């Protein structure tokens, strides 16, 4: 149990996927202008990462590994992820049209969110068992959502400040991300 907790804290805070692994930066920059859409995106990504990781874990251990087809991992995983994103998109469109509108083009782009493929591949690479896979594939997107939410709150404030012209938009957001990475770096001694 203690090991699982360590795994969880490490994935959420210490090895935060956005600030130390640089994954999932496209939605991080793209949908971080409003806190509400940041939370919606976080929820969608959590659902996709968790679902896709379960599927790919089963697929790898029950099919690919059994028949010596490990080299097909990339191709099968990305297809699972793409279908899962399509599925999520349909659900959101049906039950929350407002969220669907605010996420816009970034929703289908979850397919190309590196974090999703990274978690699926990393579960296999690190040799996690089922319980560890469940914990890890929940912890990573929670870390993503946390940082995305904090970042969007800072950006809402940033819109009101006077930024030098060449830095307007994404460049200043990168500076903010740098400072956040420094702050998260301070948590490294936690575990």
């Amino acid at each position: 149990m203690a090991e699982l907790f360590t795994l969880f804290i490490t994935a959420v805070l210490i090895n935060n996927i956005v600030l130390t692994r640089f994954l999932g930066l496209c939605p991080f920059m793209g949908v971080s202008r409003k806190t509400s859409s940041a939370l919606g995106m976080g929820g969608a990504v959590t659902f996709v990462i968790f679902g896709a990781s379960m599927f790919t874990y089963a697929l790898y251990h029950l099919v690919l590994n059994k028949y010596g087809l490990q080299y097909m991992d990339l191709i099968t995983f990305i297809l699972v992820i793409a279908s899962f994103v399509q599925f999520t998109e349909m659900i959101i469109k049906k039950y929350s049209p407002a969220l669907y509108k605010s996420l816009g083009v970034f929703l289908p782009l979850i397919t190309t969110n590196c974090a999703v493929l990274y978690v699926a591949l990393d579960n296999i690479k690190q040799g996690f068992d089922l319980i560890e896979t469940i914990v890890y594939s929940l912890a990573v997107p929670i870390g993503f959502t946390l940082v995305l939410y904090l970042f969007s709150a800072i950006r809402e404030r940033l819109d009101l400040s006077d930024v030098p012209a060449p830095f307007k938009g994404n460049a200043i957001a990168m500076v903010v991300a740098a400072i956040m990475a420094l702050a998260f770096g301070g948590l490294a001694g936690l575990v």
Partner: protein
Amino acid sequence: MNKLDNFKAGFIKENPVFALYLGLCSVLAISTTLNNAVGMGVAVIIVLTVSNVIISAIRKVTPSEIRIPVYIVVIATLVKIVEMLIQAYATDLYGTLGIFIPLIVVNCIILGRAEAFASKNNMLDSLIDGIGMGLGYTFGLIILSATRQILATGILNFSNPFTSEMMFEVRLIPADYVISLFSTPAGAFLTFAMIAGALEAYKSKASKKVKEVK
């Protein structure tokens, strides 16, 4: 737009990394040394060029409803081939790039060019676009990596990826004056922001000049 303009656009004005903010994940993560940058850049150029040509070749027979899955399968296959080649012939590079090689599949540049360019243009134009955009990406990656490596270690070096033999090494900053912050993730974000800001300032200055001449 003629072919040369098409080729040049990828470098400064439409540089995929600093102007369009595409493929950021791999750019920030592996930009610690020049070696990584060149290795990653070459891998992306190969995948991008070949996928552009293949997608352009099949653009008329691909039903538009399922085009994205089709593109993804083409790209994933190419990436797997490149990954296996790197693993076999450049083991050191494989060790340092690690999981970022399979993640080329989800590099937005590749799917982005497939969707925005290769699916609408002929094979020759797509080939040129692939090489141009790939070089632009590599160019951005090299600038970022070289800056970070010099600031963080004071040394700029490059070794042959196939034999690990050191090809050149120069010390530009004395060891006492290096700033190790730049090898950390925070340094990556900071360096990126500074370069993107400088490029933006350069571009707005250039466009002002054009207006004055007119």
